[in-house]
């Protein structure tokens, strides 16, 4: 398969793939294209087949959840060098979130079917891919849990309303 030299360089420059052997970088580049999304454009839609996943080169992407009758809920935003989407790795490959461009966004778009096929044929490629993807997923899962913890709140938010007695000297935030 012919592949653009610039695309190989773009893949090789990404932190996720930087230290991969050239053959693997080339294999990934064969499934990769560069795309621009205008402000508000959808990179993927909840429930649709995840045909691509993306590596952000520039801009910000919002992951949104839809609940009928409510405004979309932005659960997380992703920025430069981050990965958008891993549903393409998990059958039945349905996107779990909407992903929307916030401002102009430039990405490397990786064709999921193309890469899955290569990974099925070349288990070394499959292994290095999972090796890189799993920490990203673990990291994001951890962040999502911390986000649920409401870490900026004051303990008083969860305490009984305080009484208005007189006192001198104490201090907690």
């Amino acid at each position, binding site marked *: 398969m012919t592949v653009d030299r610039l695309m190989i360089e773009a893949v090789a420059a990404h932190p996720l793939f930087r230290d991969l052997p050239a053959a693997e970088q080339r294999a990934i580049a064969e499934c990769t294209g560069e795309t621009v999304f205008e402000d508000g454009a959808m990179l993927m839609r909840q429930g649709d087949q995840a045909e691509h996943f993306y590596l952000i080169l520039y801009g910000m992407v919002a992951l949104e959840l839809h609940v009928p009758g409510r405004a979309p809920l932005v659960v*997380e935003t992703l920025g430069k060098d981050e990965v958008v989407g891993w549903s393409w790795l998990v059958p039945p490959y349905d996107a779990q979130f909407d992903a929307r461009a916030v401002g102009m966004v430039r990405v490397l778009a990786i064709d999921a079917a193309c890469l899955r096929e290569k990974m099925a044929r070349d288990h070394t490629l499959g292994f290095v891919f999972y090796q890189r993807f799993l920490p990203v997923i673990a990291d994001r899962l951890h962040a999502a849990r911390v986000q649920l913890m*409401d870490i900026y709140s004051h303990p008083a938010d969860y305490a009984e309303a305080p009484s208005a007695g007189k006192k001198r000297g104490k201090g907690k935030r």
Partner: protein
Amino acid sequence: MTADPMIPMPFRVVRQRHELRNVVTLTLEPEAGGRFSFQPGQFNMLYHFGMGEVPISVSGDPAKRRLRHTIRSVGAVTHALTRLRKGDGVGVRGPFGAPWPLAEAEGRDVVLAAGGLGMAPLRPVLYAVMARRERYGRVTLYYGARSPADILYRKQLERWGKRRGIDVRITVDKATPAWRGHVGVVTRLMSREHFAAGNTIAMLCGPEVMMRFSAQTLNRLGVSDGRIYLSMERNMQCGIGLCGHCQLGPTFICRDGPVYRLDEVLPLMKVRGL
């Protein structure tokens, strides 16, 4: 500083500014005139006549004559303080405590990580850095708040981010439809690209759990415990190392803190897992 550190100096409220729900900033002037000097990171004991006394960090510009405190109403005394109006009196003892390491930060990149109201004790650092911007490398503020309505000093920070050579990165846990900024915990903003890890001083302020996660992330990005500072809070009474109320292991927060180097307090923090 008061002649007798146990006797509050009389100050008068010259301005009361509503910041957020339950949060106000008081601008104070000494009744006796003159200026109030402090170093970023220090706190005062604010005495509400008739209600009581609480420690509150100074949140204003160290170069300015007037004193500023940003106070969140959480209980009896803070509630009374947030209800003070222009012309009301308030007692001030201070400034107390160890400041942020601004001298050590000179010649280095500076990372500030604030969570919630933790932005208030860090604002004087930003004023001081902007006044002598050339002395510091890249300066990045990571600020996490619950929602857009909980972002303290929002307009001012956005202005500073555009014009004052500070990289201001704000994120919220829960976005509103109008919010076009970052969503996610504050640690998700942190990146190796924003600072030279080997030559960075980091200052963290917020709830302990937030500081814990921030320190862990900074460690992972290459900033060592010896270069990370944080501001600790505990109950206080005297504010000058006499009563023992604010004891943290072998130290007293009012005297040896509130700003500590992470490796000094790591074993003493309440939060598991640090």
